[in-house]
């Protein structure tokens, strides 16, 4: 009797809890849970009037839980908004206005779950094309599954070189390889040295450039550090600190002290959002001021959450390798409009993650549009033949990431993918490399001034557009 009472009570509690979680997202926390409702909306709108129009399915696998969840969420936001735009404008024209249905799965940041989800997409949902999975470790086995099922797979986010170096004809990558990322940053450092001959001379006088690598110790961070080291060795730079850090630190003062002691000219760090926040704060607090700046390979420091958590003073003058052309909203009206829409919907202006998600989805759609059929081989062919230039995107809005062109090489790698090296100046992202993405009228501030007392006092809030000079 007693037990039964308990059981009833517990069931009630669970039901209430579940009901609560069902309602809460819409009412309590709009910003954080916009995506779920959005995803539901996307699916609903496409299924309601699918009676006579054919449906095209695109599968997405993002990390929606785990360390990189905020990033996966932004990827997902971008992709779903892109699909929404197409659906609102009459769907896929070559297929008689076919609507696009998005199937979104959570990879849980785990390789086995991710590849199982891709397998589900291939078999149960029978999607026409798959986009995913941000984490290289997940993308790796997941893209192999797509290859096995002869389903086109567009890798977005994963930078590990080998993803497109395995000879898989079904795997395409729109974004950069890790080696591109590093090459861009090193080129950025070179540019800085050129911009300030005095600093270059001082560096030379001190026995050549020194750098410190600080990175999260799972695959992405250590891969980035490894490539940086290889490339920097070629230039004769000296590594004064190679510091892997286990993810999830609540204080990085110890690392800051270590860096201070090593006194490098350049700091390169790669952290996911949580560690990036803690690290940036620790650097600022300890007044660490390498003369060639703090360079982040992206990850956490491209995340909107990072900028909510850090004050402008803390990231002032830091360099970020953004995986998109940050000047897009200033260069193109359509991009500016998307950015506004994104802010209205998700509470943040477009980030590189959003743009990447968007672009990947758009590339998938463009391929289907070109193929004009659900046939996977035709879609693959369309991807192989795909050649979109940024100038031509005024109507199609494909390359929100601002790559000059998207065209896959024989490995399926988009060789035109490039990011932007930006520096925060007065709280504003100033692009300066490559030239196509440079913010007109600005140059990098080198050497980094030692103005900790006043730093950030006049900074504009994050997301402010630079005044074009």
């Amino acid at each position, binding site marked *: 009797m007693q037990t039964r009472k*308990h059981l009833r009570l517990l069931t009630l509690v669970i039901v209430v*809890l579940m009901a609560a*979680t069902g309602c*809460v*997202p819409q009412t*309590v*926390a709009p*910003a*954080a*849970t916009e*995506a779920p409702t959005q995803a539901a909306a996307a699916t609903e709108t496409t299924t309601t009037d699918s009676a006579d129009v054919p449906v095209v399915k695109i599968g997405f696998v993002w990390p*929606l*839980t*785990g360390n990189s*969840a*905020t990033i996966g*969420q932004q990827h997902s936001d971008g992709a779903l908004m892109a699909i929404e735009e197409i659906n609102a404008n009459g769907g896929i024209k070559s297929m008689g206005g076919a609507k696009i249905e998005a199937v979104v799965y959570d990879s849980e940041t785990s390789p086995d779950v991710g590849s199982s989800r891709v397998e589900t997409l291939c078999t149960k949902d029978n999607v026409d094309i798959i986009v995913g999975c941000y984490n290289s470790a997940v993308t790796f086995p997941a893209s192999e599954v797509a290859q096995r099922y002869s389903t086109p797979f567009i890798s977005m986010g994963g930078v590990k070189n080998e993803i497109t170096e395995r000879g898989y004809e079904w795997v395409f990558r729109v974004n950069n390889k890790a080696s591109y990322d590093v090459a861009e940053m090193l080129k950025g450092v070179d540019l800085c040295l050129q911009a300030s001959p005095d600093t270059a001379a001082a560096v030379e006088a001190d026995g050549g450039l020194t750098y410190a690598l600080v990175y999260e*110790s799972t695959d992405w961070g250590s891969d980035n550090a490894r490539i940086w080291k290889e490339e920097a060795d070629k230039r004769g730079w000296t590594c004064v600190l*190679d*510091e*892997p*850090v*286990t993810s*999830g*630190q*609540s*204080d990085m*003062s*110890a*690392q800051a*002290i*270590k860096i*201070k*002691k090593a006194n490098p000219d350049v700091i390169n760090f790669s952290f996911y*959002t*949580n560690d990036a*926040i*803690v690290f940036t*704060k620790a650097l600022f*607090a*300890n*007044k660490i001021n390498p003369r060639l700046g703090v360079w982040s390979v992206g990850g956490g420091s491209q995340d909107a*959450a*990072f900028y*909510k*958590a850090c*004050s402008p003073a803390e990231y002032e003058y830091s360099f970020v390798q953004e995986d998109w052309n940050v000047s897009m909203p200033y260069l193109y009206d359509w991009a500016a409009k998307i950015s506004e829409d994104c802010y209205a919907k998700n509470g943040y202006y477009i980030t590189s993650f959003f743009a990447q998600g968007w672009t990947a989805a758009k590339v998938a759609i463009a391929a289907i549009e070109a193929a004009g059929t659900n046939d996977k081989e035709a879609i693959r062919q369309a991807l192989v033949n795909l050649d979109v230039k940024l100038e031509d995107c005024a109507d199609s809005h494909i390359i929100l990431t601002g790559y000059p062109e998207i065209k896959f090489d024989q490995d399926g790698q988009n060789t035109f993918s490039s990011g932007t090296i930006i520096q925060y100046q007065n709280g504003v992202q100033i692009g300066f490399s490559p030239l196509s993405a440079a913010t007109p009228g600005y140059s990098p501030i080198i050497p980094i001034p030692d103005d900790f007392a006043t730093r950030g006092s006049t900074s504009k809030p994050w997301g402010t557009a630079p005044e074009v000079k």
Partner: protein
Amino acid sequence: MLDSVLLALIYGILQGGAYGAIALGLSVIFGVTRVTNFAHGAMLMLSTFLYYELFTRFGIDPYIGILLVTPVLYLLGMATQKFLITPLLKKERGTTQDPASLLLITLGLGYAISNLFMMIYGSDYKTIPTAASRSYLTVEIGDFLFTTQWSRVIAFLAAFIIGFALWFIINKTELGKKIRAVSQNRDAAAICGVDVYKTYAVAFGLGIAAVAVAGACLSEYYFVQPQVGTLFGTKSFLIVVLGGLGSIPGAILGGLIFGIVESVGAQFITSSASSMLTFILFMIMLFIRPSGLLGKGGKV
């Protein structure tokens, strides 16, 4: 070299104090009820979300929010003991003890709470930008620069305040007498007219209330996110075992050692190797002296 080690030591001590503050509640709960509360981290996370809500909705600083959140968490702790753990203890009495079930139920509770918050709030990193988190304590003597957020200093001090408060309640009050009696011998206490299960619930509530106070300190300098709990939960366990399960000064001492090892260790080896060092230290400690540094001994 010495400079940086000294600095690292200071940072380590500060950080260790914060670890200790979080671990204290866990230690009290184990000391009295013998329950290893795997939901500890989740409870910590839950409290930080309450502070976050209070701050964003009503502008209440977490330090003041303690007054509101701690009673709520105290009740939550009591409820946990009453509805989840006491039924198990009653069931196990007399028959063979099943040590797994207590671990399992708290583990399940932890999973449920942290994922419930994941569902409600998503995995976004939120911060509470209060005055204490934005102002820095700085000591600068020539090249020697020590600087840290005031909120970290407060978290360090909080460890001793919470520790003292718990010590006072347990050792100097009528309620504490009951708690001590129950923790020493529950059957004997029961014979003397102490309501054992009620006392357990009170002790559990106290432990959770303590973690709520630590949560306020944490939310002032760290972020609010559903997975924060897992991070500190595991660490708290290692700290508490290192210091001696059930010992209040032991929890603080364990926290300090952890903080120092992590911070100073990182000056000599890589940071990830120094986080391995804490695990190794923990395991060596267990094998040499399973009752922990300040534990009362006895069989484990």
